[in-house]
């Protein structure tokens, strides 16, 4: 137990209960996923205990499953496009919030951050009504617009935090040395925002790949990966789903660890939490 717990200073007793509770919570968080992964190798498919007859059949089945791969391709396209939109709109939004004063700034700020905390159904439905009024047909494009809009807040919060840490003196020095605002922006401001922007891009990409609530209402003929899985779930459970879920888990794991390392490099530990809170709630 000693290795996990460094007590408070001095002779203050360490708490066994807290450690036990923490262990219990971690088990609760990881057990379902562990079960999922385990059963993706189970010959008898999903359910039943104990698992036996380990096999890679389900993964082989998955590999040959064309609709899944189509949906993966769709999801990738959507994710990249959404990333482009979110960054293009979100970065200037962060700049505007950091430096400009204009009427309606408060409302603007709230609108940008709202999709993070709002249940996805409201964001999805409101956009659906917009597209309906505009007469637009539902398609991957509408999903792109939905993701792009909902995820602006991720880009904005990350870049905004980066801007707060930026030393104004650097920009002033640049102007002093003869560069104009445009040049200063590209030569000084943007390079300092490299890490937040990359972090935001990673996050937006992951969130878009996993997004289901907003996509649910904006889907046309082509499925994204989560929606494809959802459709199969409605029809019945197959162990293939375990396999694809395991793969998704591994990808998410890698992405998040990379993202976290980047953020810790950009700033301190606890601050990472704040952006995460904002970004994380966009998942649902």
């Amino acid at each position: 137990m000693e290795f996990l717990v460094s007590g408070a200073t001095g002779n203050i007793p360490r708490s066994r209960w807290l450690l036990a509770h923490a262990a219990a919570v971690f088990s609760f968080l990881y057990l379902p996923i562990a079960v999922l992964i385990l059963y993706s190798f189970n010959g008898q498919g999903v359910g039943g205990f104990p698992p036996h007859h380990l096999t890679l059949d389900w993964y082989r089945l998955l590999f040959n499953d064309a609709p899944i791969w189509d949906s993966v391709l769709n999801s990738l396209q959507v994710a990249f496009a959404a990333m482009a939109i979110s960054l293009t709109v979100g970065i200037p939004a962060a700049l505007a919030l950091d430096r400009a004063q204009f009427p309606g700034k408060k409302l603007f700020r709230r609108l940008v951050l709202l999709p993070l905390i709002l249940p996805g159904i409201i964001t999805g439905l409101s956009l659906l009504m917009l597209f309906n009024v505009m007469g637009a047909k539902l398609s991957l494009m509408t999903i792109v617009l939905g993701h792009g809009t909902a995820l602006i807040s991720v880009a904005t919060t990350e870049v905004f935090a980066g801007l707060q840490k930026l030393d104004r003196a650097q920009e002033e020095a640049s102007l002093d040395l003869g560069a104009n605002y445009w040049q200063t922006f590209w030569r000084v401001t943007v390079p300092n925002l490299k890490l937040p922007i990359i972090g935001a891009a990673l996050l937006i990409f992951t969130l878009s790949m996993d997004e289901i609530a907003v996509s649910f209402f904006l889907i046309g003929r082509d499925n994204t990966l989560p929606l494809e899985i959802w459709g199969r779930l409605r029809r019945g459970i197959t162990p293939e789903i375990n396999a694809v879920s395991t793969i998704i888990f591994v990808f998410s794991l890698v992405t998040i660890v990379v993202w976290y390392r980047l953020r810790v490099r950009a700033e301190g530990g606890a601050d990472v939490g704040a952006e995460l809170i904002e970004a994380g709630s966009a998942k649902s």
Partner: protein
Amino acid sequence: MFSRAYKTVVTAPPLVWVTVFLLVPYLLMFCYSFWSVSPAQAIVHSWNLENYKELLQKTVYWETLLRSMWIAARVMVFSLLLGYPLAYFLSFYAGKRKDLLYQMVIIPLWVSYLVRAYAWKTILGSDGVLNTLLQYVHLATHPLDFLLYSPFAVVLTLTHIYTPFTFLPIYAALEHIPRNLVEASHDLGATPVQTFWKVIFPLSIPGVVAGATFAFVLSLGDFLAPLLLGGPSGIMISNIVVSLFGAAYNWPLGAAISLGMLVIVVSLLFFSERLEKKWSFS
């Protein structure tokens, strides 16, 4: 410091986008809620209050809303009970392992919602892992019904999903507490338990309020978990909306309910923000 032209160029595009894709849709939702649908399944733009009358009169909507709030409240409480001690442990007792453990908490957050809900579905089913395990070790003679297709399953799954959400702001708040306050409290004679209730907990309240709000609001509006795991007894308000935009085809009524949800959520956010401000002392 930056020229006005520069500022306008930077500010205008996001402003336009946000207006078109965020503000206008909410306004549209507002408008839709006053329209109605014709028998021919076309949306009639005649302004009336029929939808709201329907909502206020028919009990099914109230019942579902209350049930949804009750589910959301339980998710909120359980998430806090799980998340707070975990955050406290990490912040004050984890020492060198703090970073690693923190990553371990946020990783489940990023595993797809669908994947996690699905995992619970396979575990809780009558042929699922939990039931067969219980029978295998002879703790049960037949599958337990209530595990799946019930509010229990929905609460369990949503708690699983939202515990890391509640953890994050609480952890951030705890991390911001200067450690010398803890030392000062000990110095003045307070035991660790007394120090927690008199110093640490009060200063962490903004984090608790934020985390609780997340869990409650997002659970309230959730429709996926009920669809997968809720069964007929676990239907939540969003499911009604989903069917109104789907098979039951009554967009205006659906818009009215959505608007109601939007109002509830925004009010809760407003209220919790005030509460957070009241309890922050920096």
